[in-house]
């Protein structure tokens, strides 16, 4: 019996060596190929689907055509599993040469040792950091080092249905809503819509839980002067209770006054089908509304409801993940690609995003597109979260959970704010 066991172990060992030999062979092959022809092949992992995915494909095709020495190969991964796959693959040494990260997720990737810092390779490739929108760029700088190339920002904005606003007498001569930028002004605007429009029209098409209400809450909280919900050293919860409660109370009233259809299963559809007068979400919806027949809509920054202009926002950035060989030529090619994508932000903007380079915004091609120029100013007032490694966990596990109860009318805003703080601290302590 012992002999058999030994035999089996040998088999197992032999098989596993075979496996590792295979994978080793695979990667050395491709590297060899690139060295022979003098052409650099770079693997690129993205999380873009739909319109975003098509625009990125178009950009890659254009880049490959105009850069004969570099070839970018795109692998599209599922949004929900993207980060898990990226982190594990890089951990195994099988990660891509180029990847995508949200600005808010970047600190986590830095801490886990997934991304490399870019200063030396950016110098070598001659990247001009000053050509980027500084508000977006600064959010990707951690401890004075650059870790990512922002290619856009996708802030939280407001869309409105022109026909419905016209019916309610709230559309000005210039095609923009007649809306006083204040807390009372916005409520008056919504009450007028509710009064003047038929009962089956929702004044404010909006989600009743999770992300978009969180984004509005974050926007209002920062409009009041709130500065994130954690301390500057990222170790403690630091929530301005009064401001957080005021923002939550303001929103709870919007729900309880019937401006928002309760538990709407699909508020995008409500707006798209012309059953909602206004709606708020990220700029990525612009492309969808444009391709909807018969929807006459407009876009604008969310109103300044409180003291200062501010909005929730995030950016897509291009990162260079840690690789086994850290090949300098490959890295230079990769950052050249990233900078080129940012330069051609007018193509990327087709889905609705705001380009990260002012020069892309100045291009005629960008100006010729409708709607984008109406909200492009938001890029300067986006309030990013602080560079905590726990941003997503805090949002998903502590904040949204309690805010959802507020929107449902089951919890007082002050109680929710009080309850979420120990949970945020728990996430930070882990």
């Amino acid at each position: 019996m012992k002999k058999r066991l030994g035999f089996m172990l040998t088999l197992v060992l032999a098989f596993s060596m075979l496996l590792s030999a295979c994978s080793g062979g695979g990667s050395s092959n491709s590297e060899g190929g690139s060295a022979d022809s003098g052409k650099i092949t770079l693997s690129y992992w993205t999380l873009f689907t739909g319109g975003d995915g098509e625009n990125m494909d178009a950009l890659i095709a254009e880049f490959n055509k105009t850069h004969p020495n570099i070839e970018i190969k795109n692998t599209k991964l599922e949004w929900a599993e993207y980060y898990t796959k990226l982190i594990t693959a890089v951990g195994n040494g099988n990660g891509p040469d180029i990847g995508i990260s949200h600005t808010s997720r970047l600190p986590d990737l830095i801490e886990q040792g997934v991304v490399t810092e870019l200063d030396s390779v950016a110098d070598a490739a001659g990247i001009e950091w000053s050509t980027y929108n500084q508000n977006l760029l600064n959010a990707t700088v951690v401890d004075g080092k650059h870790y990512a190339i922002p290619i856009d920002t996708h802030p939280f904005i407001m869309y409105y249905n022109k026909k419905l606003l016209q019916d309610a007498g709230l559309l000005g001569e210039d095609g923009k809503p007649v809306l006083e930028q204040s807390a009372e002004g916005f409520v008056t605007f919504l009450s007028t819509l509710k009064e003047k429009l038929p009962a089956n029209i929702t004044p404010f098409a909006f989600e009743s839980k999770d992300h978009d209400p969180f984004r509005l809450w974050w926007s209002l909280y920062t409009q009041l002067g709130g500065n994130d919900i954690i301390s500057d050293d990222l170790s403690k919860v630091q929530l301005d209770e009064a401001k957080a409660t005021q923002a939550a109370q303001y929103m709870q009233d919007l729900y309880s006054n019937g401006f928002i259809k309760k538990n709407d299963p699909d508020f995008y559809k409500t707006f798209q089908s012309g059953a909602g007068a206004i709606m708020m979400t990220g700029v990525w919806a612009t492309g969808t509304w444009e391709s909807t027949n018969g929807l006459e809509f407009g876009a604008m920054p969310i109103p300044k409801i409180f003291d200062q202009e501010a909005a929730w926002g995030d950016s897509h950035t291009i990162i260079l993940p840690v690789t086994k060989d850290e090949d300098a030529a490959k890295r230079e090619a990769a950052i050249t690609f990233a900078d080129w994508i940012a330069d051609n932000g007018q193509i990327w903007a087709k889905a609705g995003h705001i380009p990260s380079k002012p020069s892309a915004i100045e291009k005629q091609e960008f100006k010729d597109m409708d709607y984008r120029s109406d909200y492009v100013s938001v890029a300067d007032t986006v309030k990013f979260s602080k560079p905590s490694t726990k941003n997503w966990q805090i949002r998903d596990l502590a904040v949204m959970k309690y805010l959802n109860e507020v929107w449902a009318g089951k919890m007082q805003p002050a109680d929710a704010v009080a309850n979420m703080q120990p949970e945020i601290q728990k996430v930070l302590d882990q």
Partner: protein
Amino acid sequence: MQALIFLLPFLFIYVLFTIWPMIKGVEMSFYKWTLIRKIEYVGLQNYANMLQDSAFWSSVWHSFLFVVLTTPTMIVLAIILALVANRKSRLQKFYRSVFFLPSVLSVAVASYLGLFIFQPYTGLLNSLLHLIGLLPGNEEIFWLSETSLAWIAITLLTLWWTVGFNFILYLSAMQDIPEDIYEAARLDGASDSQIFWQITLPMLGGITRTITMLQIIASFKVFVQIYIMTGGGPLDSTRPVIQYIWQIGFRQNDLGYAAALSYMLFAILLVLSAFQYWLNNRKGE
């Protein structure tokens, strides 16, 4: 010895993908371990944290609640359906296929159908209630946003989706009951209900014990239908233990702690199975 050669291919896969990860998991549970790498040895810290972790124990309770809600209802429903399909009738074949059909759906498909049935405004159930006038036109029932209603929705969906398998087991067990016992009973003048309570039900005892055991273990592993239909909400009040373990491991990036929680769940299931095994053997004597 010859058998070993035939067993070897499966054994190899089994060891590589089941036994080895199980051993590795024990090691993991003693470490702080992220998706990328081992960080540091923490001894029994993960297990100590678990005892303090109220979120874990409430999620264990939710899974337990799901077992309590689904197991008895599942058995009763499966017996009723099997009785209906076992009656001599022209619709016999129709019943059999209709009752079994939902079981062929994958869990994701079944859960999305569940969403369409229970969602407000456009969902099948609320529209139906509006149609027959049980629900006033301007009111909505939020099946998936109220804790108790959410449990009802999840239980109904699970029953509809999985009862078919148990139904088949009961049906075949019923057909194994010898016809002459029924004949003798009828000659003695037994009524239909007497026949059911005195003959059919006792003869199904063995299969009922098997189904109960399988059902308890299957129900304890519930995750996907709840995740899709309610996401564990509202306020984590329907979050089952598997979802919690998954969140800890893959959302909070703490595989070590997730491994420790998994072994706790393993221990709970082991105790349950052992108890049931003991119960069955005692009855068998």
